[in-house]
């Protein structure tokens, strides 16, 4: 085919002038690589957000004692949140499946005979199991009766079981001590391993909330209340209703600051996105800039090349090339440069995207979309910056260019 013969002439000239070709290509390579990386990071962040939101619970809201803006480290020192607040929410806010208050204490010595272990103690209501989707693998969970009677029972995590009971098969019915309070092991929680921060989820003892407040910790307040909505889409308005309810109960009027925080899936998503967001904007700017600069450089090199090769163009015209043939040859050069540049840039971006999560905290997931987008971009840049030189070449008059 005529066009393929002419295209191969264009490619031939790229092969002959390798250094020139590389300079023409450099901008595209960097730009496309950046584009690929941005999209991989975007995808990675999206997935990380989804994962974190799912971990948090897509329908969950945490009402945490203590004001401020940041995500609080769990803290029991603020005493304003109470079981009565939980009751009020239960009675006055519609569309909630679960309202589950919690009280806790960190680094509590748990003893059994000669063994002891530092664990987190959680005082919970029976709904805790459902609210956190965390059930026992042996024995039973916390019951309504346990709460009503301040029962001296506990459910232990896998680490606590291992540390206190060793390989002994069944800890159920055994007794352990927290702050000299004797508790009978009622169940063993399913193991959840370690958190993203490295904390051990299984180093915990779960006890009825009344037992915790009255017998173990001696407090009148709770640390947090976990709410599970019937419908994720109701969460924003429910969170606002909870805010005004608690403010009223705590006698807080704006501009006075809330003495609690509400954490919703949206808040979690924003926190996760925050870290990757700024970098992404920087990279987008870099990618756009280098694609543009790359295009301009390519166009200029092509224009110089047209001027340098005036005689060649004249000769081609003399031996039968039409204006269209000359145009096609030079457009082939710019398109080939951007397409090959795109392939190399994509490979570079693929490499960096694969390495990035291994050497940094940055999430990156490689998908096929950026490559399609990159190719579309390349054709656009190749055409946009290639047409001008090609047209100049095609317009040369054979007589004048042969002179």
């Amino acid at each position, binding site marked *: 085919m005529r066009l393929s013969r002419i295209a191969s002439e264009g490619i*031939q000239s790229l092969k002959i002038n390798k250094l020139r070709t590389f300079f023409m290509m450099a901008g595209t390579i960097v730009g496309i690589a950046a584009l690929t990386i941005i999209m991989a990071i975007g995808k990675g962040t999206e997935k990380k957000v989804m994962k974190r939101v799912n971990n948090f619970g897509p329908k969950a809201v945490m009402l945490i004692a203590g004001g401020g803006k940041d995500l609080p480290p769990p803290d029991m020192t603020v005493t304003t949140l109470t079981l009565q607040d939980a009751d009020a929410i239960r009675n006055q806010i519609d569309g909630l499946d679960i309202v589950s208050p919690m009280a806790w204490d960190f680094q509590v010595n748990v003893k059994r005979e000669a063994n002891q272990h530092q664990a987190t103690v959680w005082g919970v209501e029976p709904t805790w199991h459902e609210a956190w989707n965390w059930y026992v693998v042996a024995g039973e969970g916390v019951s309504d009766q346990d709460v009503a009677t301040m029962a001296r029972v506990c459910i232990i995590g896998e680490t606590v079981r291992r540390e206190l009971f060793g390989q002994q098969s069944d800890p159920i019915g055994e007794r352990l001590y927290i702050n000299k309070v004797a508790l009978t092991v009622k169940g063993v929680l399913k193991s959840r391993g370690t958190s993203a921060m490295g904390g051990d989820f299984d180093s915990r003892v779960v006890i009825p909330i009344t037992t915790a407040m009255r017998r173990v910790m001696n407090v009148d307040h709770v640390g947090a209340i976990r709410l599970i909505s019937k419908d994720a889409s109701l969460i924003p308005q429910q969170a606002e209703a909870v805010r005004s309810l608690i403010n009223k109960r705590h006698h807080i009027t704006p501009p006075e600051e809330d003495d609690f925080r509400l954490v919703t899936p949206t808040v979690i998503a924003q926190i996760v996105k925050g870290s990757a967001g700024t970098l992404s904007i920087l990279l987008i700017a870099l990618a756009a800039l280098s694609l543009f600069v790359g295009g301009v450089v390519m166009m200029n090199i092509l224009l110089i090349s047209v001027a340098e090769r005036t005689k060649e163009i004249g000769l081609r015209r003399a031996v*039968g090339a039409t204006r269209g043939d000359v145009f096609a040859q030079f457009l082939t050069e710019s398109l080939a440069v951007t397409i090959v540049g795109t392939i190399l840039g994509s490979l570079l971006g693929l490499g960096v995207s694969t390495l990035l999560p291994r050497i940094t905290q940055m999430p990156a997931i490689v998908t096929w979309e950026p490559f399609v987008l990159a190719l579309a971009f390349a054709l656009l840049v190749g055409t946009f910056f290639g047409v001008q030189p090609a047209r100049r070449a095609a317009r040369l008059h054979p007589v004048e260019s042969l002179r």
Partner: protein
Amino acid sequence: MIELEAIDKTYGGGDTATPVLKGVSFRIQAGEYVALMGASGTGKSTLMNIVGCLDKPTGGQFQLDGTDVVTMDDNAVSHLRNRKIGFVFQQFHLLERTTALKNVMLPLIYSEPYPGDAQRRAEKALAAVGLNDRMYYRPSELSGGQQQRVAIARALITDPQIILADEPTGNLDSTSGLEILAIFKRLHRDGRTIIVVTHDEEVAEHADRIILLTDGKIEQDRRVAQPRRAEKECTEHGEQETAE
């Protein structure tokens, strides 16, 4: 057959209009060997460009084998050049960093239909100008005479009726020049139309007919009674040089 009738060519317009050709008429039959002569600035290059379909006259008629070239569009004229005219230039105009073989094949890129045996044809054309052992040399590795012979092979590759040569020996020493003229003689004998544009009387006298151009007009159009015989001179010249 080439028919020119009252060809005018004027560059520029208005006050700065410069007439270069003023009513040039002649016919060249197929198979003729014609020298187009004139001092520089007499319009012979312009005339050659018009005959070679590289440029269009501003007035007059030009027919090539009965077709009106003046009214043809650019694409049609390009195809016409490809099929009917082989160019040989003073500067050779070979593509640098490209082998002799690829240089010779260049016009075929623009040929319809593309011959399946393109490379073999190029090899044959190179053999015909005595360069069968230089096919993969680049222009910089060849002497001037060899480069011009590559250019002739390139002109022959599409098997055109007309060979149009612009000062083909202008950049060559006399021996190489004679070799080139000897090739033209042979091509003429094979039935091709040869048109050589030159300012050099000695070169012109190898042709059967000389058209002399002065100040944009034909001053003289004459038969050469005894055209010089390039092949013979070539041998003699060679012997002379060997003797020296």
